[in-house]
């Protein structure tokens, strides 16, 4: 087990190295540098050639990209992600300020999804073939195919444009002066739409997943035994079958780790939500190399960690699985 983890960690480190190298190479070859993008954003602010050269030197843009990459890598090993070119703040502090709103959405939606998906999946198994099950399955299947951005704009048109009940963005203006309950109400008003967008597709996916797993388990011998003993169908589903469907669930939880912190570029863009995804999108447009690299590193690291956790947890939950 320990050797397995160590080996996986080493491989993961190699993968991280390759990913960051490739992304760094790519972004350094994008047309435009942070300096030229700044001039584009503010046409009145044209730099003299000397100043431009000075800025290039300051940002390390005068060096070839592989050299700059290893400088960046060295700094990362010392725990320094560097400073954003555009925002003049450290990358770590920018990520820290953006991670809150993203977590607010993703944790809410993840909890909601799991709490709804499991009963829905079980309901589908118990009522297999009945009208209600068919209806639910079709509905979930249709939902699964609705693209997030279509649903997002649709919801905005209905609830913001026409009804005016809910709003995009993080807060209303004057949020600081609201009472405690006012703050909670305001947050809910802004959160509801993105949370729905975040959740519906994974809800559809998860409940289908639960259902498929249950159907697999229900064919096993021990279920037949339980049925032969005269256990009620309800008890079979809850006590005999469902517990055994939890194993693949653990994997899924591990794999959802990157989405938890990474947010979603599209949803945050639609609802103007100041989270990780939106920040990443902006940083690419601004050619803010350190910020792009810091976030790419975080996303890739979380993906790898999630995969490792999923594999380890799998072995923990299911004693038949041996890692070697």
């Amino acid at each position: 087990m320990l050797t397995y983890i160590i080996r996986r960690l080493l491989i993961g480190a190699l993968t991280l190295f390759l990913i960051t190298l490739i992304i760094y190479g790519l972004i350094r070859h994008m047309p435009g540098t942070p300096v030229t993008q700044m001039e584009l954003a503010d046409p009145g602010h044209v730099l003299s050639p000397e100043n431009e050269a000075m800025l290039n030197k300051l940002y390390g843009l005068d060096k070839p990209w592989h050299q700059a990459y290893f400088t960046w890598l060295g700094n990362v090993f010392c725990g320094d992600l560097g400073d954003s070119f555009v925002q003049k703040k450290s990358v770590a502090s920018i990520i820290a300020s953006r991670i809150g709103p993203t977590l607010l959405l993703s944790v809410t939606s993840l909890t909601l999804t799991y709490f709804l998906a499991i009963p829905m999946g079980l309901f589908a198994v118990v009522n297999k073939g009945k009208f209600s099950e068919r209806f639910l399955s079709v509905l979930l299947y249709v939902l699964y195919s609705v693209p997030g951005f279509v649903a997002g704009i649709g919801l905005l048109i209905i609830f913001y444009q026409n009804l005016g009940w809910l709003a995009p963005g993080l807060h209303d203006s004057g949020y600081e002066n609201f009472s405690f309950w006012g703050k909670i109400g305001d947050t809910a008003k802004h959160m509801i739409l993105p949370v729905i967008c975040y959740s519906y597709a994974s809800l559809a996916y998860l409940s289908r997943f639960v259902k498929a797993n249950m159907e697999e388990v229900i064919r096993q011998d021990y279920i037949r035994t339980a049925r032969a003993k005269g256990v009620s169908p309800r008890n079979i589903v809850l006590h005999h079958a469902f517990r055994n469907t939890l194993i693949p669930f653990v994997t899924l939880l591990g794999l959802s780790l990157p989405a938890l912190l990474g947010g979603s570029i599209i949803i945050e863009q639609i609802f103007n939500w100041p989270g990780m995804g939106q920040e990443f999108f902006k940083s690419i447009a601004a050619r803010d190399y350190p910020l792009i690299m810091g976030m790419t590193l975080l996303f890739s690291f979380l993906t790898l960690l999630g995969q490792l956790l999923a594999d380890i947890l799998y072995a923990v939950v299911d004693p038949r699985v041996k890692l070697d």
Partner: protein
Amino acid sequence: MKKSQKNKKNQVSSKPAAKYSENSSTGQSANGQSEKSSSQANAGTAVLERSRGYWAETWVRFRRRRLAMTALGYVILLSLVAIFSPMIAGTKPIICQYKGQIYFPCMGYFYPSWENPVFIHDDIVHAYPRRLKEADPESWAIFPLVYNDTTYRVRENDMPGRPENPYGTNGVPSLQNLCGTNAYGYDVFAMLVHGTRTALLVGFVSTGLAALIGITLGAFAGFFGGWIDIIISRMLEVVICVPTLIMILAFVAVIENPSIWHVMVIIGLTSWPKIARLMRGEFIKLKQSEYVAAARSLGASRFRIIFRHILPNALAPVLVPITFSIAASILLESSLSFLGIATSSSAISWGSILHNGHQNLAMWWLTLFPGILIFLTVLAYNLIGEALQEVTDPRQRGSR
């Protein structure tokens, strides 16, 4: 009911026989035997002369699924719309006679230079119906079903008697503009029809590329193992670990003025890992089977074993992720154009209409119609993929 069940069982048993007959000559007699037994069991129903091949068998099973067939019909309809898009909506005549010559100006929608430069030279392009007559009273032309353009606003009397297109929030759907107009007065219906071309092209080109890369790499990794496997698996992991959108954003940003073809290639380059992974698994499994050992003992080269013996048998399961990947790449392309990245005026995309819809929430038709189209297309490919999965998965074949 009982009979049909028997029939199904029979098909299952005849399938490996069909497989063997493709790959070894000794399988021929075994095949004949199974046919005999199947025709006995099938007495009363159809007597099979020769057992169907694997693909035919899959098709027969697929055809029974009404929903999947509807989805397939929808995709075919969409392809027809894509092929005939310039004849459905546009302002360029399908065919016209001008100064004694026959022209097909509508081809300019496929590729700008296919429209004869004489029309640009004589300044006819932006109002064919009126200016053709002005320049040559003898001329005649057949116009598309819907006279509207994707890249400019039709003005009053461009076509004699036709009022100009409304624009902005006035552009509500009407008989003249079936799906409304956008902020500048371009017709949304025409954009949707021409956007079909982009959507389908993206689906096929990028998935074709992904399938090519995925199948080749997966096959080599699974067949050869060892160092080749390690290197390919590492590559696979690198591509999987970077969130797709981030990878694509980085790639797209590298290219100056990315066209739709660039986007297709980039989507293809980032979506092969799933196919490769499945292919690798299939190859690891199949390379240990008897018919591969038989082929090897007959002296077949490794190249021949990979492409002639294993690949045809590994292709069916890989069709499933390929179908899903078509849906995913259409979705990806429309989300890219929705985000406002990589949109070029030459290729109209459903996603870019949605982008306008997001900016003008009051113009609901900019969201509703492309949204429904993207949704239906993705749903159709998902349904086909799902049906393929059930049809080609041997574990599920017996049930239902």
